[in-house]
């Protein structure tokens, strides 16, 4: 209702509203007269992230009544595929606001330095806003002194679990301290639940490996993106642990949609993913309200690191946008304001990266869907200990090679975890021309 009123104010009302709003926005650093900004913008995003942006639109339109925002949910991979194709075609058929995962972002800036706008050149205030974000979120978005996207969310990983299924099997999540405990708990839970029920899901992609490797302080590449580190001990430990989970028969195979279907059908007892999966579970199975809970990642050994990051994205503005002003206004509004980031956390579970948002009172609230647990305290509490990891422009290339090695290893082929990862390192070296660290 308020939106419609704000969209059609009389002349005097309009001027008044603009003055008030301009005053109200001062604290956000966006002191432009919002009425000057007008036009239509299209935003490309995927599932929960698209829903989060959509949730911000009403508040955005109160401040910018003359901008019409269309959020298109294309699905995660299609956004990447169509973005690359659009950039390769010289920036045709691109939206005004483009969602990009941090880990996959560098290929865009490296191959198509002209495809996206340098945010710093778009507005004089942008530098100050960018400076608020943690450095690890900016590394992959920066080339020299250009910054191509505004940080959005991050993906601190946790275990989401079904309280009722755990309880039925007599498993107390507080006793799951190590991955070995996790595996023992899994065996009990699925034995008790019977039927098709599995403990965790994988579509066979590398997300499990990247999470556990990050937990162990290892990644495909070093932090500068200059050498290949996948053969190092942390990665080996991660791969061996996943093999144990696999060999215990805890995995169900399913892609994104199939996993959600299994959750809805009570056929999945846990999910290990970034905090952003919260919105997917809650939105997908509203009838399971109160049955879910969250606990920290198990450690490799008692007292070890229990944090990892998976995913996390940013918003960029294609240089071909016909409405860069409105696009920038939206991006700044969605990501640069603590209230908007909390809106997205509430809507979809997108974990804020803006430090002011992390301390919002909502974070400490009990969540009814999650059995009254203060889940955001658990999730956001892991942020300080997460180790940075760099995607580099070769991420997609390396990831497909690792994916093949990983699949073979889980099937018992290719020898030890160390041998498989050394082989993957060699393949990545020959595909990218980068050296293997320590060789």
């Amino acid at each position, binding site marked *: 209702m308020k939106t419609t009123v704000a969209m059609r104010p009389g002349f005097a009302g309009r001027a008044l509203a603009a003055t008030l709003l301009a005053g109200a926005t001062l604290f956000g650093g966006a002191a432009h007269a919002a009425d000057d900004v007008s036009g239509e913008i299209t935003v490309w995003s995927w599932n929960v992230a698209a829903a989060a942006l959509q949730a911000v639109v009403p508040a955005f339109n109160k401040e910018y009544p003359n901008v019409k925002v269309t959020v298109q949910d294309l699905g995660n991979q299609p956004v990447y595929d169509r973005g690359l194709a659009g950039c390769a075609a010289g920036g045709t058929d691109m939206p005004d606001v483009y969602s990009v995962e941090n880990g996959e972002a560098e290929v865009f800036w490296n191959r198509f330095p002209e495809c996206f706008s340098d945010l710093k050149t778009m507005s004089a205030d942008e530098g100050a806003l960018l400076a608020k974000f943690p450095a690890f979120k900016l590394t992959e978005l920066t080339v020299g002194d250009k910054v191509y996207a505004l940080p959005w969310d991050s993906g601190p990983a946790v275990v989401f679990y079904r309280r009722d299924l755990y309880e039925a099997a007599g498993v107390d999540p507080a006793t799951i301290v190590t991955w070995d405990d996790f595996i023992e708990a899994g065996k009990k839970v699925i034995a008790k639940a019977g039927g098709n029920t599995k403990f965790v899901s994988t579509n066979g*992609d590398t997300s499990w490996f990247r999470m556990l490797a990050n937990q162990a302080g290892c990644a495909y590449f070093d932090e500068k993106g200059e050498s290949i580190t996948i053969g190092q001990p942390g990665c080996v430990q991660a791969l061996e642990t996943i093999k144990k989970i696999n060999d215990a028969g805890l995995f*169900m195979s399913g892609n994104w949609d*199939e996993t959600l279907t299994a959750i809805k059908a009570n056929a999945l007892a846990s999910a290990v993913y970034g905090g952003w999966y919260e919105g997917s579970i809650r939105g997908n199975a509203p009838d399971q309200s109160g049955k879910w809970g969250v606990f920290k990642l198990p450690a490799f050994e008692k007292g070890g690191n229990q944090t990892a990051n998976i995913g996390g994205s940013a918003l960029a503005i294609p240089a071909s946008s016909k409405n860069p002003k409105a696009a920038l206004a939206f991006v700044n509004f969605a990501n640069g304001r603590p209230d908007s980031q909390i809106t997205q956390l509430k809507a979809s579970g997108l974990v804020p990266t803006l430090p002011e948002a992390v301390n919002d009172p909502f974070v400490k609230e009990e969540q009814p869907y999650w059995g009254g647990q203060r889940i955001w305290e658990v999730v956001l509490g892991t942020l300080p200990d997460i180790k940075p990891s760099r995607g580099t422009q070769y991420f997609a290339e390396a990831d497909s090679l690792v994916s093949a090695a990983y699949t073979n290893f889980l099937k018992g082929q290719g020898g030890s975890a160390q041998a498989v990862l050394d082989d993957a390192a060699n393949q990545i070296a*020959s595909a990218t021309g980068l050296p293997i660290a320590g060789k």
Partner: protein
Amino acid sequence: MAATISPSVTTSRPARAGRGKPIDRQWSVPYRFLLPYLIVFAIFWLWPLIDSFLLSFQNTRVNPWTVDVAVNWRRLWVDQAFHAALRNTLIVLVLQVPIMLALATAIALALDSPKLAARPLFRFAFFAPIVVSDVAYSVVFRLLFNGQYGAVNQALTAIGLPALDWLHDPTWMMATIIIAVTWRWTGYNAIIILAGLQTIPKDLYEAAAIDGAGAWRRFRHITLPLLKPVIVFALVLSVIGTMQLFTEPWLITDAQSSGVSIEMLGTYLFKQGFRNLNFGYASAIAYTIAAMAAAMAAFNLLLARRSPT
């Protein structure tokens, strides 16, 4: 069409060239008719063909691109992922194409039989899969072969067989692809072979029957030899189609997401080109696929010509 052609027709009056015009002016007539097509061909086919050939000698992962003659072609030799894609494609080729063509021949014979009632209906029914959009059919196959809820596994378990992980276990993924491709293309090939069957003179069969040849011998010694050119034609089409296989692995066994997938040459080419953004390497792969398909087609044609009919 008429509108595009008519200017050249009216200006040069080729239709009346026979009356008193010098005979050597007539040579250009067919080319003028072809001109609209040739222009389109040159822009959208010839130029990309040449350009992608040149791309294959460039390092396209640096900005700006640089000429590096060996970088992509050398990588083909050492790239295990490419070799796996090639192996997978050849497995489909060796298993699926013969099965499909044998089935297609059998169906064509049945459809040609005068004993079959409602022949047009059956002919359409077998041809119908090719009319369905490949995206739509892929979605349906993905549902049918779903490991937990799919109809195929329901049927298997109903008759006491184990449920199979059709979409995630590499061996069964291969089987799923082969079944899907066979479902889609068998009818198409059957119609081609049926057309071939109908060109065989019926009196040959009568003569053979009078000489005491049974049904099998008539098939073996009349039908098959006379059908050979048509079957080879279907074979060449199928080989080329398999080398370019894309939709089924991409959509049914989900090679589009980054999970477990059976990479085929087509999907690997796409990923190198548009996901890793390495147009140079993708071009080298594309030319390799084209060269292999051409070689196989030539080999098939050679075989067909050699042996006596």
